[in-house]
């Protein structure tokens, strides 16, 4: 049923896209969303190659964005006389979805994009926003057997597209603690023996926290914020480690093991109130860690370059085992997806470009961020030595085996995302972190909505 739904939606798009194309010709605006030169320049002198410009959207605006630029520049250099170029447009995360849907609905979508981390995949696949890639990948001989099985699994939405891939995995990310080594030295802690469990984590955090004369935390041992991303992703990880599950494996039951979830909320609250190792008074976590206002900060590999450029003395270690159930941490996959076009003739050039980017993702997965999903890249002898020093990058590579807390592959995946500043979960839990709502009430609210989401599929 759902699949038919998707097909008809795609047809609807095609028709409306054609209508839109007609309107464009009449309106003849000076600029179009994808300024492909193919038609306009075909009348040029014989022998001159017509250039297809592929538009690539990216929400990557942390220091990983700069490596993405270089990666794309490499592609453009290699294709200068082959008639294909990529133009990257930075579309901020907050507007990505709205702008993309508006562009797709009017038949003017970008050719490809880095996609959104916050679980829009299933929805996009169902609504025909993203293009199924199995056939296209086969056409350009993209070697899917070189990809780790788990990365491919994360690019599929069984409910809405069978075994079709809806993005080509580019990198795998996890959340790991970065630690300010100046603070470690100052507190006399042993830099060869980073915390592995709850007790040692708290001990380290306490040793590094600084207080003012009234006992208020002025430098957090564990970097937190009063609300939004940081406390919520912390809860997402710790609750999972304690045995809580947002959804059961069969995607039927929400909030498995709610007591563990509540205990994890209390663990987060204790950072502020009981152990006093975190301050709620941080506005910008990235900036604050960079400026030495925090000692341990769990974040993603996209921050590494920025802090290195800034000259911050830091290392990274594996997320400690806080709960009794497992040592898992947050998982996120970066993948490039293709968006539905009016002119399907563009797909071929686009998938070829994506294949090239994937084949040449060594730069992206060493200097840029994350770990390569491609076995041939990870097994290269220089994979460990390329890019930033291993002591800041290593944990993000070695920690991948624990990176298991990812998206729930349903339409409302967004509601379940633990790494975001704006979704249902954040809205529900934020009052808990500031003491305005009890963990029990929050858990009931989560259960009610998540169960409804799961029931809807």
């Amino acid at each position, binding site marked *: 049923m759902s699949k038919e739904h998707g097909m008809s939606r795609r047809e609807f798009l095609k028709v409306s896209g054609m209508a*839109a194309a007609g*309107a*464009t010709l009449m*309106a*003849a*605006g*000076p*600029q*179009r*969303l994808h300024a492909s030169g193919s038609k306009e320049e075909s009348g040029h002198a014989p022998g001159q190659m017509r250039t297809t410009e592929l538009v690539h959207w990216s929400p990557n*605006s*942390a*220091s990983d964005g700069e490596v993405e630029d270089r990666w794309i520049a490499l592609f453009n250099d290699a294709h200068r006389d082959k008639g294909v170029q990529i133009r990257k*447009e*930075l*579309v*901020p*995360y*907050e*507007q990505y979805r*709205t*702008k993309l849907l*508006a*562009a797709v*609905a*009017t038949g*003017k979508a970008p050719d490809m994009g880095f996609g959104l981390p916050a679980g829009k995949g299933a929805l996009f696949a169902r609504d025909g926003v993203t293009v199924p890639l199995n056939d296209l990948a086969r056409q350009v001989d993209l070697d899917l057997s070189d990809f780790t099985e788990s990365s491919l699994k994360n690019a599929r939405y069984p409910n809405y597209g069978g075994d079709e891939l809806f993005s080509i995995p580019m990198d795998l990310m996890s959340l790991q603690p970065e630690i300010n080594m100046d603070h470690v030295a100052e507190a006399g802690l042993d830099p060869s023996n980073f915390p592995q469990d709850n007790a040692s984590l708290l001990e380290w955090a306490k040793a590094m926290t600084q207080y003012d004369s009234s006992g208020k935390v002025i430098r957090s041992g564990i970097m937190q914020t009063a609300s939004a991303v940081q406390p919520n992703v912390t809860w997402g990880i710790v609750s999972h480690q304690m045995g809580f599950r947002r959804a059961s494996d069969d995607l039927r039951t929400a909030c498995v093991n709610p007591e563990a979830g509540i205990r994890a909320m209390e663990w987060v609250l204790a950072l502020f109130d009981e152990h006093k190792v975190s301050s709620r008074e941080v*506005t*910008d976590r*990235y*900036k604050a860690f*960079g*400026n030495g206002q925090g000692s341990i900060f769990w974040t993603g590999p996209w*921050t590494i370059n*920025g*802090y290195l*450029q*800034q000259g911050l003395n830091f290392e990274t270690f594996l997320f400690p085992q806080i709960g009794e159930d497992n040592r898992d941490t947050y998982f996120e996959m970066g993948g490039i997806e293709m968006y539905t076009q009016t002119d399907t003739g563009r797909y071929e050039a686009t998938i070829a470009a994506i294949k090239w980017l994937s084949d040449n993702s060594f730069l992206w997965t060493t200097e840029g961020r994350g770990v390569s999903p491609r076995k041939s890249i990870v097994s290269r002898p220089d994979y460990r030595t390329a890019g930033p020093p291993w002591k800041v990058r290593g944990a993000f590579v070695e920690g991948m085996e624990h990176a298991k807390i990812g998206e729930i592959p349903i339409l409302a995946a967004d509601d379940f995302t633990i790494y975001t500043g704006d979704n249902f979960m954040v809205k529900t839990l934020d009052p808990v972190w500031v003491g305005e709502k009890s963990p029990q009430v929050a858990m009931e609210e989560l259960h009610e909505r998540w169960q409804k989401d799961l029931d809807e599929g």
Partner: protein
Amino acid sequence: MMVQPRTGRQIGSSGIRLGRLRGWQIAIWFIGLLVVVAWSAPFVWMVSTSFKPPEDVMTLEIEWFPRRVIVDNYVKVFVNHSVWRWIANSVIVSASATAASVLLGAMAGYALARLTFPGRDFIFAMFLASLMIPIEMFVIPLLIAFIRVGLANTYLGLILPTVPHVFSVYIFRQFFLEMPQSLEDSAEMDGASRWTIFSRIALPLSRSPAIASTIILFNLNWNNFLWPLLISFEDRMKTLTVGIASFAPGVGSHTQLGSFGVSMAAVTILSIPSLLVFFFLQRYFIEGVAKTGIKE
């Protein structure tokens, strides 16, 4: 000039010398000046921070004037972002949108003030009501419509929605209401067409509403945020306000790098044109606002 109401005296200034004040008045005068200084402190702090090296920004001692002056923060903003392009876009968009609004607004304001016709009151009420509608309510339908007709990411797309701003209609209507009937009557006797009366008599008199609406609308357009944020799909089509907004944590995430110095450099760049225009033309700003009470 008999038809220019209230421009003879500038609002709020008439010279009284300090020597003529009594003791308690001097005390109040002085305290007031301290408040004025405090009121301008955020601007001073913005500019001062923008010239500080990162290690001098986060200090527990307040340094109103940087000990070490550097321009690195500005270099960073200009090198890493297409600031010149954004400035050019802002100028193009604000100038053309403002010119169009002022001209069309003058015509509409003239009709509403001087001419009698069925529907006049309704149309004016509709204009006023439009000021109450939160634009966020229809911004997405508008976005879809603009993309569909191929205006997304174009200058026309950035400009068009800001043209029908009722501010200029309102201020011209106010002005023309006060214009003496006798001026028009004699022209009408001579058989001049309505357009001639408007363009030869009414318009040349309306220097003051024209300037007031030009600078206020230019400023509004320059500072416009949500619409240009949504309609620009490429970095090179951003306006300066949208481009600079990416230095804010809630809007974009250029926040990892650098310190507050860089973001203060960015907002200094963004606010300098507005402040310069204001200080040179403040009389018109203040009159425009005082007469209409409109400023978003």
